[in-house]
């Protein structure tokens, strides 16, 4: 009968441990994404993927590049701080291809009231009207030009 030395038991365990560790490292190599841990405990490439999503709102400066006259009118009036797309909607496609993508027509009856309908909850210095009493049924554009809403003398629009 062969005599086992005690250390052989330990070697067997060490070999088994090394095999499991090697297997773990191999699986880990294939399962964990390449950029994981680049900046922290997450996939670093996810930052770039989020940044690469398409934009829908072109931004004020993109509008003003072509529509210089309207931008100048707006800049001089009460609506200077209101960016174009706040009323006209998302128009990045129009900015990218102005000829084929046209902005939709707007309804001032909806748009003006959204901001300017009187409510006690709004800041007191914000211009507000009770629409029904204020206009007597007329549409807002009859008196106010949306790009420069202060009422001006005839023909100055």
């Amino acid at each position: 009968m062969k005599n086992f030395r005690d250390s052989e038991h330990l070697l067997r365990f060490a070999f088994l441990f090394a095999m499991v560790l090697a297997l773990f490292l191999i699986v880990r190599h294939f399962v964990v994404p390449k950029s994981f841990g680049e900046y922290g405990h997450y996939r670093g490439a996810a930052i770039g993927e989020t940044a690469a999503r398409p934009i829908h709102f072109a931004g004020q400066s993109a509008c003003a590049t072509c529509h210089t006259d309207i931008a100048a009118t707006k800049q001089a009036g009460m609506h200077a701080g209101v960016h174009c797309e706040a009323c006209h909607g998302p128009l990045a496609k129009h900015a990218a291809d102005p000829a084929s993508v046209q902005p939709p027509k707007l309804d001032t009856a909806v748009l003006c009231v959204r901001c300017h309908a009187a409510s006690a909850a709004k800041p007191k210095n914000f211009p507000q009207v009770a629409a029904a009493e204020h206009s007597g049924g007329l549409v807002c554009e009859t008196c106010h030009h949306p790009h420069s809403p202060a009422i001006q003398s005839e023909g100055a629009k």
Partner: protein
Amino acid sequence: MNLSRRQFLVLVPATAVAWQYVLAGTPRDAPNYQLADHWWGMLLDITKCIGCGNCVRACQAENDVPDGYFRTWVERYLRTDWNLTTPEVISPDGGKEGFPTAEEVKDGMYFFVPKMCNHCADSPCTQVCPVGATFITPDGVVLIDQTYCLGCAYCVQACPYGCRYIHPTRHVADKCTLCYHRITKGLTTACCENCPTGARQLVDLKNPNDPIHAFLKTHDVHVLKPEMATGAKAFYNGLDGSVR
């Protein structure tokens, strides 16, 4: 510096774009976005908010947010003088189509509070994620890696501001990205772009020329739930004590 052929080919056009700014003596304006140069946040001015819902609609259009879910929303508070701690709060459809008309009250005040992800520097939501699918970027934006998210909703429960939801069709966590795809291109966020009164301002705390630094010194600015020490970066001007 070791560069692979592929990396080199990517860098050449990027350098060419930046070069004109370098020659003009303004390399900071070059469109090459550096993560380490920014620390983003948001300023929300309650004294200017009119509750029009433009930000909610803009966010939905920009980020394809499903109906009934919100990355940003507006709440209307009615805080009465005889009950300072439990205000009456409404937010019909997140304030997307505005609010019902409010009548003047004698013993209280109305005000609007736009809410969104606070992009906390020490965010509870990123700490609880079991797989590392949500994280704060080196430029201070809390993002979700939706290809990695399991949809366990642990982060939805962890967020003290209620800013996260499980996407109804993709079944993964979703939230405000601070329009990361816009701010990295030099644009402002969709909500700031569309706010008619300037009640929302994107701020870059690492930019020494950002007006936020002067604003923080001269105004009474607070964050939501400061006692939770989340390092929130959504700064509220004129915040009433009753807001939770």
